């Protein structure tokens, strides 16, 4: 039996039921000490809550309101329901931006995962110069996006491209490549820049995950006769899955809402072939002053991202549930 004034509730296993119900029950049953701790925790959380409320929740709610009005710059609008969304649905440029965004996100994320995994595996097996190489690998991620993208704009310039010069000198091309001029090439060039920039995030996170895998598991697999690919597929990949899903979740969200790369490299051109949701929302909302329509274009991302997030969180939880059952 615990001494008076203390509870052992924290030692009891949590009961099944909703987190909210469980939390409220614990609050009702809390001791004075626990309640003080809880209040103190709330005070410590307050700055974060205020920041998120001010810079995330408020703009989000305001954005929803704007998207349901015909607000233009300098004039408060009136409620128009889903008229802005209907207009967008009928807008060929918006549909192109939607298509581009899906392709851009899918391709860039898969490429970053592939290249990131390769880099992580290589860094994990390094025998020397670990610190320098790991630090160098992070550079694309650390350099401010605007600066690195401007450098890429020079490298992909149709007249002065260093990339074209190198490929020409190596005999790999006979005519210059117009990296940002063709409707397909321009989008893939932007994807390339995104992959260059985002791969370190995948690599460093997957590397951290790799280092939690015990070498004994690999030894056991080797003893059983598994080759390198089999060890990756049956040991590394499944054990890395939770980390992989988390990093992909973040990457999908960031890539889907990408703006800077496209804005600097192409402005959404040529002929809207590189427009994404974010750049088109900017063009509609800021360049034309139609804030309501711009907000609607921006919010169009939300349902898709929400579904992606739900799916990935479900997948992660399912994986955790499976691990718990196996452990039980």
């Amino acid at each position, binding site marked *: 039996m615990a001494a008076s004034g203390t509870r052992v509730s924290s030692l009891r296993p949590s009961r099944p039921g909703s987190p909210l119900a469980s939390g409220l029950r614990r609050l009702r049953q809390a001791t004075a000490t626990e309640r003080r701790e809880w209040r103190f925790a709330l005070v410590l959380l307050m700055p974060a809550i205020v920041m998120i409320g001010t810079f995330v929740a408020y703009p989000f709610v305001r954005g929803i309101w704007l998207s349901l009005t015909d607000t233009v710059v300098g004039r408060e609008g009136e409620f128009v329901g889903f008229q802005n969304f209907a*207009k967008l649905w009928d807008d*060929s440029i918006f549909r192109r931006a939607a298509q581009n965004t899906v392709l851009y996100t899918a391709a860039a994320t898969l490429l970053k995962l592939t290249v990131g995994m390769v880099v992580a595996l290589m860094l994990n097996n390094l025998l020397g110069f670990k610190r320098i190489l790991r630090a160098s690998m992070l550079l694309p991620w650390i350099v401010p996006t605007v600066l690195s993208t401007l450098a890429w704009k020079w490298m992909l310039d149709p007249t002065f491209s260093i990339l074209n010069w190198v490929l020409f000198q190596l005999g790999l091309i006979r005519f210059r490549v117009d990296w940002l001029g*063709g409707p397909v090439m321009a989008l893939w060039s932007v994807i390339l820049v995104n992959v260059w920039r985002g791969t370190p995030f995948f690599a460093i996170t997957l590397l951290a995950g790799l280092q939690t895998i015990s070498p004994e598991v690999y030894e056991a697999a080797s003893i059983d006769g598994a080759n390198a690919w089999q060890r990756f597929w049956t040991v590394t990949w499944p054990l890395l899955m939770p980390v992989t899903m988390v990093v992909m979740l973040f990457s999908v969200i960031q890539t889907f809402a990408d703006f800077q790369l496209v804005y600097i490299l192409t*402005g959404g051109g040529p002929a809207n072939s590189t427009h994404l949701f974010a750049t088109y929302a900017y063009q509609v909302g*800021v360049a034309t002053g139609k804030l309501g329509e711009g907000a609607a274009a921006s919010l169009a991302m939300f349902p898709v991202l929400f579904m992606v997030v739900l799916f990935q969180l479900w997948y992660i939880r399912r994986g955790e549930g499976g691990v718990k059952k196996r452990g039980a």
Partner: protein
Amino acid sequence: MGTDRGNATKRDWGTIPRRTFLKGAAAVAGAASLGGIPGIVAAGQAPAYPKGTKLHLLTRINFIPAGDTLFIAQAEEFGRQMGVEVQVERIGENDVTTRSTAAIVAKSGPDIIMFQNNFPHLLANGLADVSDLAEALGKEQGGYWDLSRANAYVGKKWLAVPYGCLSNTMNYREDWLKEAGFSKFPDTYEELREVGKKLKSMGHPVGQCFGHSVNDPNSWCYPFVWAYGGYEVEKDGKTVALDKKGTLEALKLNTAMWKDMFDEGGLSWDDASNNRAFLAGSISITNNGASIYFVGKDKFPDIAKVTNHAPNPRGPAGRYYHLATHSSAVMKYSKNQKLAKEFIRWYMDKKQYEPWFVAMSSYMIPPTKVWFDHPAWTKDPKLTPFRDSIKDARHLGYAGPPGAKASEALAKYIMVDMFAKAIQGTPPEESLKWATAELKKIYSA
């Protein structure tokens, strides 16, 4: 800040006593009824701005640094005379719209913003009425050019004071033209195609931007359509009229020109790309302002020597220009509207404007007609074609009245993308159909 004030200013600037300066300004500007510094001097009163008053002006970075340097010096002089602090903030031209929008929504920011094109129409709800000032300046200086007025006069009032137009014409290499066997610059678009074809075969293509950039692509595409009798809307400002035979002809010709004469990197260019390409010697002709020539004179004298300028090509319906106008708007949220107007009055006054115009080396066409015969235009005959372009300039949204819908069409690059799609392989008819449908959505909203 800044010591390069241009030759014409040296006799006017230096240590001018305040009273002399104020009297001089009064003498140039006229009666006390005009207000501003002359009015204050005439009334015998000191300016009444509290200590610590700050005036903030936002504008684009000019391609001619000497002009910016002088303008900043003039702003400082105004501030000294008025006992206020004047901040001139210069940013990339593509960013001015973003800043303006943010400022108007937040109701806080610069007191004066220099807008490009017909943005005063687009952002009309956030701009103060400056009719008294604009009308007075127009009367003094021989009246405004139609284009300058069109982009700053909204409804029945002036929402901005015209500042100037960016001139643009055909920049070309005389030496390569001669080498190709042509004694003068082609007059029509068809002739240009033939000349350009020959030049491209010699390794000196024509350069033109068809990407998403504010100035150059529009300066090519709009006049091309106009020259063939096409235009966006009818005079009623509502009926979309782009799908005319003339527009299709222009589109087809441009598409043919793409392979025949253009540098095929143009789809990914921005406004600075053709400048770089011309000065690097990789293109022979481009549509641009005088910035190529001025940078050439400064840093690439051998190229400047063989660079010349010619009017835009002519089509069956005439010769036209899309010139980017600049106007100074006082923001409605500004607490310094009176001071802002006085500052605009100050720098638009001939005494200040002339040295700036000369320092800009005719890069900007002044908004009023009094400057048409200024010797600066003929001092260097290579610059005269820029001056003449204002006479054939049209506003966006022609043949309808200028307005926010034309701004929307510009911001969405409808005209430019119509050309770009055709270049990329979409049949010109389909490309025209797409552009017409997009314009209909804009003009029917």
